[in-house]
Each structure stands twice: as C-alpha cells, then as structure tokens.
C-alpha cells in the first residue's frame, strides 16, 4: 500500500514540479517556495533548522482543510521534515470542527496532536491545555517584528500561548473599476444626487450596493450584485455582524465594554446601536447575489473573487485571492477600512451621539499552540518558528489561498506587495488600511471569554433568524441578549468579567 502510494506521489510530483530557476541561495534551490527571497538569516531560518536533528521523532499536527492554512502547514511540514529528519503527520479538518477536534481529546486528557491550529478566540478555552511559548522564542528577533496587537492576541494575562503565524482583521474590499470609474461616478450622481466614492458609512455602502445590484456593470454578459457577505449561520457570520455593528456601538466616549458593560456585565447586544446594524444587515439581504443569505466565507470569497459583486468585507483572504495573477479582477480591487456611521449609541446617556464614528474590527485569525501534554514540545515550537520564519512568511502572504496574512511591521510596506505584481496604488491603500487599524484607539476584538462559542452561537442564531425574516431585528437581539444572560449565569459573571476585561483593555488600545 505504502509503496503504491509513494510511486504515485513520485510520479505526480515529477509531472507537476517544474524545475526551479537557479539561484545563488542553496536553500531556494532545494525549496522553490522561497525562490523570491532565498533564505533569510534568523533563529529559525532554513540554515538554522538544517542543524537540528529530529530523526526518529514524529510531530503530529491538526490544521485546517487544504488549502487555507492547511496547505502552508503541510508544505512547511514537508520542508521541516526534510531539514531535520523528523516525521511530520498532518491532518486537515474543516474550520467549524477545529475547536472540537482539539477540545475533545484535551478534555479527555489526551494529546493526539502536538500542534493544534484554531482561531485565536479559542485561547480562553484552550489555554489551560497549551504550553506557553518559551522565553527563547518570545524574545527572538523574528518575534520583535510582530505588531503589539498581534502579540496581545496571542497572549493571555501577559503569557503567550499561541505562536503568531497569521494576522487577521476585517476591512472593506471594493471594485476599483466601478467606484473609481468616472462614467459610473457621473451616472450615480445623476441618478441619486450623491457621490460615488469609497463608502464612508454603512448607509452609503448600502445605497451603492443596492444601486449596483442585479445588472451587468462589468460587461461580461452576466448579472452582478451589490455585496457578498458571510450570512450563513455557524460559518463565522457572527464576525460579519460585529463588523457591521462596531461603528454604531463602539463609542470612544464610553469605554469599558462593547459586548458587555464591564461594570454590570449586562449584555449590550440589544442596544439600539446593534439593532441599527442588524436592520442595515437585513436590508443587505436585498443586494446580495441569489442565495447570498446562505453564503459562507468560501462562497463570499468565491463570489467577490469571481467578480460577481461590488463590495465585500471580511478577511484578507478575499483581497489577496482577488489579487492573484490568474484572478479575473486582478488589480481591479481596492481596500479600505470598514465603513463608519454618522451616529453612535451612547449607553451612558442612553441616546445617539451624532457625528462620524469608525471602529476597526480585529477578527483574530489563525492561531496555533503546542499541547501541554505533547512529548515533543521543543520540536513543535521549532516547527512553528520555522513556519513563520521570514522567508516562509514573505512567500506565504503573497499566496491568497494560503490564508496567511500580515502581522509584522515589515508587512506594512507597499513594496512587499508590488513585488508580487500588485499595482502601486492598490498596494499602498492596502498597507495604509492595515496600518491605520493598528493605530486606532477605538476598535473591536471578538469576544474571548469562557463560553465564547455559546455567546457567538446564540448571537448568530438570532441574527440568522432576523436575516431570514423569522424575527424583527429588535426581537432577535432581545432573544440573543436573554440567552447571553442565561449563559452568563451558567458560566458565572465574574469568570466572564475577568476574561473580558483583558479584551476591553485591547479594545480601548491601552496595551
């Protein structure tokens, strides 16, 4: 069986792997993945890893399905195995089941995986089963370049549990060829009396999306639509909702909690700010492609990346995928911060504060940790360190399907992106967008408290009911808030408060 497999693999590899272009760097000869930069010296470079010897040892990894994060995990595993002589077994699990797949054995006292991939908001539930990242790695040069917000994301109470390999946030993607098109700008102005520009508020976003919904505006013979969004319940849709809510509900005048009032621990998700956002969102079901109400992240990326919609907002993946050389909308997309709002709810005065407000949403993305019960911790950290070494990282962030996104100061330079074929102004708008988010003092991070999943699921279920028209936005959020109270009581208010206060500090950028 093994022999057959090897033969087949060898045959296919021989057919597929084109011979690498000769570079001076001996590592890029051997590993074409890094042929753009060659090996970059560092603690975990190819050179350093080749000196380690893990022969006879096995490293077990659970990661996401191929290709997003799954392919780089497997690719770097293969390279790591070649360099150190270790055997690396990688399993791939769909996103929705990553949590359970690691959590079931954790709770049963097992460590079938040395390394588990997940989302960074798993940290609260996972941290007691994870080995803190040893000092040696925390202090090394590679780590110094990671932005403070991503160090914060990977840590809990100052202890780093997750090894930074990815950075994620939600931002707006739009079709430059429409928004910047003078013909459409004129037409839009004539028809609506308003400017066609990168939408500044969610209302503008909605108006433009509705205007460009249901007709062929790029001349390919197919209808295009307004917006592609993750609206499918249980598929990260809660994140999309928080993105739309942040501007209405994250008021810089009222620090101390976005999800809960940290003092009273009263859920805030049914206040008028959130209701306004959900009302917007229900209206959005009118300008998504047919079936858009059932889009998961993959559908969203496929839809926007396939040139079907004007807008989309979520992770970097869609943007990078759209900018791949073989994409139909390559160099036709722009990036911008999430739209804001012209009013924001003030929970202290119980009224709307008028004026423009904007709040970026850091959706923590891929996170990875080493199991406490693992017998190969050193090797595991070496692997992660190798995964994120500079050469690998630079190669990875340019490949959209890898899902590895910027989280280092070095990544926020336009030339990193122009190198891989992006137009200069697009690259610039992209890195500017990301950098602004890092600096914002008024931002939102997803909930990471005990029972995170229950909170998010309750919210997603309620929001989904509203989107499907089963409940009004207010009724849906009231239902969610009631469930949040129940969960709070089950989990214990103080437990949640303690955990959430860490998040609130980051929201108000006080780190």
């Amino acid at each position: 069986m093994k022999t057959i497999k090897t033969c087949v693999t060898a045959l296919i590899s021989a057919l597929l792997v084109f011979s690498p272009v000769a570079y001076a760097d001996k590592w890029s000869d051997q590993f074409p993945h890094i042929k753009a930069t060659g090996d970059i010296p560092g603690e975990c470079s190819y050179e350093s890893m080749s000196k380690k010897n893990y022969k006879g040892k096995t490293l077990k990894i659970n990661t996401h399905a191929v290709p997003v994060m799954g392919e780089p995990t497997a690719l770097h595993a293969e390279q790591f195995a070649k360099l150190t002589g270790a055997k690396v077994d990688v399993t791939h699990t769909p996103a929705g089941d990553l949590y359970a797949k690691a959590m079931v054995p954790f709770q049963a006292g097992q460590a079938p995986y040395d390394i588990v991939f997940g989302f960074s908001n798993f940290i609260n539930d996972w941290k007691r089963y994870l080995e803190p990242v040893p000092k040696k790695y925390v202090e090394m040069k590679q780590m110094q370049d990671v932005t403070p917000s991503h160090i914060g994301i990977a840590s809990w109470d100052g202890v780093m549990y997750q090894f930074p390999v990815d950075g994620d946030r939600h931002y707006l993607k739009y079709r430059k060829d429409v928004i910047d098109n003078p013909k459409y700008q004129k037409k839009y102005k004539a028809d609506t009396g308003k400017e066609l520009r990168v939408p500044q508020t969610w209302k503008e976003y909605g108006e433009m999306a509705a205007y460009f919904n249901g007709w062929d505006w790029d001349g390919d013979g197919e209808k295009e639509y307004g917006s592609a969004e993750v609206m499918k319940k249980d598929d990260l849709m809660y994140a999309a909702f928080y993105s739309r809510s942040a501007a209405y509900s994250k008021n810089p005048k009222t620090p101390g909690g976005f999800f809960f009032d940290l003092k009273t621990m009263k859920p805030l998700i049914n206040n008028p700010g959130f209701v306004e956002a959900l009302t917007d969102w229900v209206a959005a079901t009118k300008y998504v492609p047919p079936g858009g109400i059932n889009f998961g992240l993959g559908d969203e990326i496929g839809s926007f990346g396939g040139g079907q919609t004007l807008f989309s907002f979520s992770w970097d993946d869609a943007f990078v995928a759209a900018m791949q050389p073989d994409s139909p909308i390559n160099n036709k997309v722009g990036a911008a911060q999430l739209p804001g709002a012209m009013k924001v709810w003030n929970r202290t005065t119980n009224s709307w504060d008028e004026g423009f407000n904007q709040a970026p949403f850091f959706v923590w993305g891929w996170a990875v940790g080493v199991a406490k019960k693992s017998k190969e911790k050193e090797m595991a950290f070496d692997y992660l360190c190798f995964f994120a070494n500079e050469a690998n990282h630079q190669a990875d962030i340019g490949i959209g399907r890898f899902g590895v996104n910027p989280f280092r100061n070095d990544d926020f330079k336009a030339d990193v992106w122009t190198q891989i074929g992006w137009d200069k102004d697009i690259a610039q708008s992209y890195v500017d967008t990301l950098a602004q988010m890092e600096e914002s003092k008024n931002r939102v991070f997803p909930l990471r408290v005990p029972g995170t999943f229950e909170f998010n699921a309750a919210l997603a279920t309620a929001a989904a009911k509203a989107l499907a028209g089963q409940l009004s936005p207010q009724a849906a959020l009231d239902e969610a808030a009631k469930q949040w109270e129940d969960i709070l009581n089950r989990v214990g208010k103080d437990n949640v408060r303690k955990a959430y206060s860490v998040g609130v500090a980051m929201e108000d950028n006080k780190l």
Partner: protein
Amino acid sequence: MEKLYKFLKYTFIILWTVFIVAPFLWAISTSFKDFQSVNSKVTYIPWLDFEPTLEGWRVLVKSPARGGVDIVEPYFNSLFVTCTASLISIVLGTLAAYALSRFTFKAGFVRNNDITFFFISQRIMPPIVLSIPFFIFLSTIGLLDSLIGLVVVYIVLLMPIAVWIMVDFFNRVPKELDETALIDGCNPYQAFYKVVLPNSIPGLIVAGMFCIIFGWIDFFFAFILTFTEVQLLPVKVVALNSSITPWWSLSASALISVAPLIIVAFVVERYLSKGNLSGALK
C-alpha cells in the same frame, strides 16, 4: 388507456433517471473546471463552455503540501475498516439472528421480539449521541486513532443491520429444514453450518451489501475517533472543504468514492434478476 398508461410509465422512469443522473453529470463536468469556470458563471460542457483542466483530479493524489489531499491511503483504510467490520457484524449478527429466529428466549418480560428490537434500536441513536462516549471508551482501551478502534465502533453501527435482515431471512427459511438436519444426526452447530448457512447465501449477500454501504458512507465516527494515524475516505474528502470550496476536487473525489459501491449495485441487480435475493429481502 393502455397506451396512456405506458406513456406515463416511461415518462416517469425517464424523469426519475434524469433526476438521479443529473448530480453525477454535474459533478463530472465540475471536476474538470477551475476557479474561474466555477465562479464567474454557470458552465456545463467542457471545451464549449469552459477550458477543461485535470486539476481537480490531480488534487486527489497530490500531497497536502501541494494543495492536494492524497486519498490513496484513506481509500484502503476505508475499504479495510468497512469490510472487516461488515464481516464481523455478519458473523455475529447471523448467529444472533438465527438464535432469535429459531429458539425462544424468556427473561423477565423480555421475549425474542424485545431482543430483536434491542439490536435494531441501536440504529436509532444518532452518531452524535455516541461519538463522545465512544471517544472516552476507545481512549480508555487505547484504541483511539486506530483501525481496530474504528472496526469496534462500526460493529455497533452494522450489526443491527445484519440482525435485522437475517432475522427476517431466517424467519422465511422453514424451520423444518434445521429440524430435519437435527433428526439426521447433526447437533445444532452442525445443523447451522452444514445446512442453514449454505441455504442462506442470498440473505448473507444482502446483509453484507447493506453493511458495506452503511459502513462506507459513515462520516461522523471516522471524523471524531481518528487523528493522524488513520484517516478514512469521507473525512479526507471533507477536509477539502476549506474556506474556499474547491468544487472541482470535491466533485472528483465524490465520483471516486462512489465507484467501488457501483459494483455493489451491479451485484445486487444480478442477484435480483436471478430471483435469488427475493426471499432474502422480503
């Protein structure tokens, strides 16, 4: 009237055939597409509507490090687990079914029918109900992430099917047959394997077929109870379902995973036509 009836009859089965075949045709077409041909507009016929590519099929044998899934080993794992568990289930299930069909059991209020129902009722449990306890159970006996562990679990899944079919089958085999064997000097075991068994082949084929089908299509247990050592086909295929859904390779793997069982369909049809299975399935 006769003509109308005939017309309706053929219309109905042709429509149904189209309905059955449609998703397969779609899958075949999709398996030769790429991101572009899937996401820009609806396309059907290769060369005419889109430029076909073998990428979807290549993914199946490529290593994950190159964006593939490598389903060769999982394929054999699935075959092994399915066949072994089916075999054990059939052996144990057939014995139990024979006992339930031929002998009377009484224990308190429990009668034969109750025992039969107990067997069959195992199918009522949704896999989700059992998955966590099984996880703990297998981890206690050290069989997590192993082929044997999966076989053990699949026995629970499959034995009820074997018992259900074989009880029904044996109830149709005249019990005078085994009585004659006993009278002719066989003890109950000899009567069973010298006389009853050779005459139960149709039943065994049906039971075996159902066991294989239900073993082959299980996803949930295979998913929860394995980590890195053992991967079964459905789990591997589902692992293709990343946040970007690769329709093309999913289609290709769906087609590949159906292939072995299509042979089963032919076997069943052959036996049906020969009239051999009728008694077994009635």
